[in-house]
């Protein structure tokens, strides 16, 4: 699965780079992230549970960073496996380019490979699953950056009137407000977890 996207983030360049290094923001932005720890300067350990409808995939993996060029660009390799179910493997290249004082273009190019039962039986769903996870991450991430702290309106849409409603109600997604802002050199490898992450669960 190859994915090439540019996401406009409503925040200054440095702010985005810092946020991308804020382990709490990242942990909150990744759909299904259960744990995220630093092991050393360029290694992260993540546990993420990704759900595609009923199919859930739990992944524990290691992320290695390289070609660091703060605050502009970044390379990453990722590998995770477990059990009879399979594995996920991937890499990514990420670039930040400022677009004016208050906006930054975050472009990333990632390729992912998933193996095991889910790749053999649900191949139809894998690519769109990875894309959905990536887009979801960015919505959470940019929402977390734009308003601080962010109060999210109740996620339950109130009962709309019966009858043919033309409006496309916005999709309700739970987003707890970001808690801390400590700059750590984590890099946004986690984006890649979101983009490629899952494999058949153990």
């Amino acid at each position, binding site marked *: 699965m190859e994915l090439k996207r540019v996401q406009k983030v409503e925040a200054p360049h440095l702010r985005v780079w810092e946020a991308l290094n804020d382990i709490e923001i990242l942990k909150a932005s990744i759909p299904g992230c259960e744990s995220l720890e630093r092991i050393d300067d360029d290694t992260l350990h993540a546990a993420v549970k990704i759900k595609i409808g009923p199919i859930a995939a739990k992944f524990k993996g290691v992320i290695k960073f390289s070609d660091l060029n703060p605050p502009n660009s970044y390379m990453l390799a990722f590998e995770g496996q477990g*059990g*009879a179910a399979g594995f996920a493997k991937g890499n990514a290249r990420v670039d930040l380019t400022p677009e004016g004082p208050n906006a930054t273009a975050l472009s990333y190019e990632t390729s992912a490979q998933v*193996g095991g039962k889910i790749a*053999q*039986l649900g191949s139809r769903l894998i690519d769109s699953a990875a894309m959905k996870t990536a887009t979801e991450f960015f919505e959470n991430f940019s929402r977390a950056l734009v308003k601080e702290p962010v109060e999210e309106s109740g996620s339950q849409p109130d009962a709309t009137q019966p009858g043919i409603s033309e409006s496309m109600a916005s999709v309700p997604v739970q987003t707890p407000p970001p808690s801390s802002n400590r700059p750590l050199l984590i890099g946004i490898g986690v984006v890649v977890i979101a983009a490629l992450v899952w494999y058949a669960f153990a």
Partner: protein
Amino acid sequence: MTTHQSNDFVGQRFPRREDQYLLRGEGLYLDDLAEPHNTLHLAFVLSPHAHARILSIDVSEALEVPGVVAVLTGEDFVSLIKPIRPNIEMPTYLYTDRLALALDVVRFVGEQVAVVLAESKYAAHDAIELVQVEYELMPAVVSLEQAISEGSPVVHEHVAGNIAFRGEFASDDFATKHAAGKYRLRERFRHGRVSGSAMEPRGCMAVPIRGEEITFYTSTQIPHIVRTEIAKHVIGCSESALRVVVPEVGGGFGVKAQLYTEELISVALCLKYRRPIKWVQDRREDLLTNTHARDHIYEMEATFDERGVLTSLELELYTNIGAYSSSPFGGTIETTGGARQIVGPYKLPNYAYRCYAVTTNTCASGVYRGVAQPACFMAMEGIMDRIARQLNIDPLEVRLRNIVLPGDMPWVNVLGVRYDTGSYQKCLELARERSGYEDFRRRFPGSRLKDGKYHGIGIGNMVELTGTGAPGWRVRGLQAVSGIDGATIRVEPTGKVSVFVSQANAGQGHFTTFAQIAADHIGVRPEAVTVYEGDTASTPFGTGTFASRSAITGGGAVIQAAEKVSNKIRRLAAHELQVEPNDIVLQDGRARVASDPSRFVDFEKLCLLAYSLGKGALPPTEVYGLEATEYYDPPVVTVANAVHIIEVAIDAIDGRVAIENYYVVHDCGKVINPMIVDGQIHGGIAQGVGEVLMEEIVYDEHGQLINASLLDYLLPTALDVPDLSTLTIDHVETPSIDSLGGFKGVGEGGIIGSVAALTSAIYDALEGIGANVNSVPLRPSHIASLIRAARQSAPDPEATRAKQELTAAH
């Protein structure tokens, strides 16, 4: 050897004896066999990686699942099972041995790394998911194109460049003759990878009997070969203590004509635990691990004269044999098959090939219905169509100008293969006349586009090598495929006839057809004959059922044994009736005096003598018993032939192919049962339609097989095959002069002809707009992209076609 044929049941549309119990749901397939109470069920842990080193396997969690008795890995089997090595002696052939369970490296997704033994199947399936295997990924090579490219990763260190076998041939002075060719064309044909996908996945059950002996039930087409190979590979298993029994088999198609690791493992574990061991495969495992087929590249350069007559052909053939060569046929079966059989019914004078068996990190690829012939005839018929297009001669006419003519037969082709008899010319002419071919050409002189559909008509003119005996297999280097088949015929004390044959059917109606043959040659009605197959304890040794052989080899053995038995009956009757044996005719269980039919003696009376029952006594010159065992090894391959003509209409936008008309004329020598022959052709046609339009095993570039279910590996349905009103099958019977009974095989003709003809039809429909159809499968998406590309590049496709007509007019 003259045969006293006193009846003519062979040739009749005898209804099948098998139908009664199958229709009632009483047929017992492998998983239906009663399991002894303490049976252990197996489930396998499959590698999720295409190429990786096994670092560790933790079975502790799996062992805690209630009902799990043991979890074994590669190390456990090193002392139980020898590595599988197909017995192939071919120059340059490099063995790629297969261990029962992977030991330190896995080489394709689905390779087995551990096996769980549990009291219930459900518990076994629970446990395999708890086995934790740690891998270290290695670079994988997946596609044929990648495997033969510079610097590609290698599957086996000792197989440099992934070339496990290299074959070559050149007729004398080929280079000069090929260079001298008047007209020349080059083309590359690509055939995708398919799976046989029988409706019944595989399975086996090993049951300990009287301590040391084992009765081994397995869904196979080659019981005797499996028995010998198990005895050779499973340490401590003595062949005489092993009985292989074949239950009903739910379709084989060649995929079950192989030795598989699970068969070795089941017998080994049965010996080790002294408990019945049962394994039933699920569909995902079928698609991941049962031997695949095809996945070929044909690079061809042909030269021909102004009349379209082939003067020379040069072929470079690459076949993807996967990570391990299958056994007993090995990785060369499709490689040599494609290279040697591509000549087909044509008089090709000068031919040279280089063929390569290429290893990749994928499942083994080998024998499935047609074995390379569907792919190589798609290529050869593609060459014929392109010669016709280049010279603007009618494609059928080009074929007529190239085929071996009746007067030339028996014909030995450029490779030394003998074509004993055949009706190539007659079938082509019949096809032209009765298939609506000429009417189509009249209806579509120029543009093929009508009502938003491109119309085309395709030709599949092919021969099928059938009934291969020992010489045929040795030429291909195969030592473990004996080539002979055996039959024991016994007339029982009450005059009924038992026939034991070394074949193993998977739905071909052997219980009916062999009864017809035996009945004719012994002189009883088929209803008095019972045929037994698939039990190494009762049937004589033999090769088994695959590659359209049973009618010839099994039939030949039955004829020889029947002749022996009927001669003895004639002698006993002659003694009883005081006449010469030659004056006795056997019919309906009676021995009559030919010159005075009112005088006769019933078989039963003679049997009393043969079995020392009752008061009579055998003539002194005779011995007790009324049976004979004979083995038959056809001297040479018998060559059947057929022509398929298919008319298609292709939607210009959604690229879907509708079969408007389907005509087949088939010649498989003396027909034993026309109803069963037609059934084999129908089945082959459907598989051909699947192979061309929708079936493909898809590996991604990392070696993940991404369509391991029937949701994504599409099989043709009742709506995809030609319906009753559009399908016509004609028969021509040109008996073989080489095989006993004049039989030729038919099992694979249907698929070979339909793959060639359907590809040709789609090519014919789209070549006018400049689209080059040279690969299968041809999904609607691919066809639509060919049409889009052609429409964009050719400014006005109709103009180019008109221009062509002009040049042809000179």
